[in-house]
């Protein structure tokens, strides 16, 4: 499996992601520039976190119009895998590769902490190494992570099993008290209907070695490989 890590002006989790794939997962990986359109060498493109184009206009908006993101649409339509992490998730929603939008956090502050998450659907290529309702811990770090989608689309997503992760506490309680940003239904990660495009606000790439406090990110990232 060959990976690519997208690099936009302002991406800042690109090297962390590259490091995890190359040095921990031991898989082939290359950076791809935001002007690149040929993705034929890759099986999975990861759109990393950061502040692409300075979050100007809206987070992810300008990045969604770049040649690379446009090429990702064709890439995804062939059934290849795309993962958007944090700003990458915002880019994928702006590009309409995933439904919904990421609004500013409901409390108006940047949130940066370890967060428990519940696996809502483990029958996807991204979560098959996890069990349903398993609780994992990953870091979150964002200002605009408040997932919003209209009620009709949300109902359809629930029906299709497109809700992958929800914010919870260590006991798996999913409610307002365990919601770090105001996301509708405590949603932390979703996929498309075809289940080959996945977006999440938490950072699995920052949680792949136990010295970092949690290595649960590996459970997600190895699902695609094994």
């Amino acid at each position, binding site marked *: 499996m060959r990976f690519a890590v997208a690099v936009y002006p302002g991406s800042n989790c690109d090297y962390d992601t590259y490091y995890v794939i190359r040095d921990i997962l031991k898989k082939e990986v290359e950076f791809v520039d935001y002007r690149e359109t040929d993705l034929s060498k890759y099986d999975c493109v990861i759109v990393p976190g950061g502040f692409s184009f300075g979050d100007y206009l809206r987070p992810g*908006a300008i990045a969604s119009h770049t040649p690379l993101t446009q090429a990702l649409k064709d890439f995804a339509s062939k059934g290849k895998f795309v993962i958007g992490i944090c700003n990458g998730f915002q880019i994928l929603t702006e590009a309409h590769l995933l439904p919904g*939008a990421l*609004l500013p956090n409901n*409390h*108006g502050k940047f949130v940066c902490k370890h967060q428990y998450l519940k696996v809502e659907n483990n029958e996807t290529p991204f979560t098959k190494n996890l069990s349903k309702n398993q609780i994992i811990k990953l870091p979150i770090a964002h200002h605009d992570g408040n997932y919003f989608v*209209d009620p009709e689309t949300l109902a359809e997503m629930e029906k299709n099993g497109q809700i992958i992760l929800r914010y919870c506490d260590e006991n798996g309680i999913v409610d307002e008290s365990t919601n770090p940003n105001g996301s509708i239904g405590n949603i932390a990660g979703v996929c498309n209907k075809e289940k080959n495009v996945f977006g999440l606000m938490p950072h699995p790439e920052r949680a792949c070695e136990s010295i970092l406090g949690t290595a649960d990110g590996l459970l997600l990232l190895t699902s695609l490989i094994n």
Partner: protein
Amino acid sequence: MLIKFFIKPRKGVLDPQGRAVAENLRSLGFDNVKDVKVGKYIEVYVENTDKEKAIEEAKEMAKKAIVNDLIEDYEIQVVE
């Protein structure tokens, strides 16, 4: 010609900035403040076009880039 975009959070979409400003105004004694929406104002200058064409173009710009209609409402003003 100048196209003015007035963008604000759509009805029903949470606006933490608006809420904070409303609370701030009330704390300053403006007890009659019912609600505040904080949005964006964008100016786009265009060349060689008539007003009608500019309005059409503005709508296309809004649709393709300036506005995310899932979360934002907008109004356009074109000034010659």
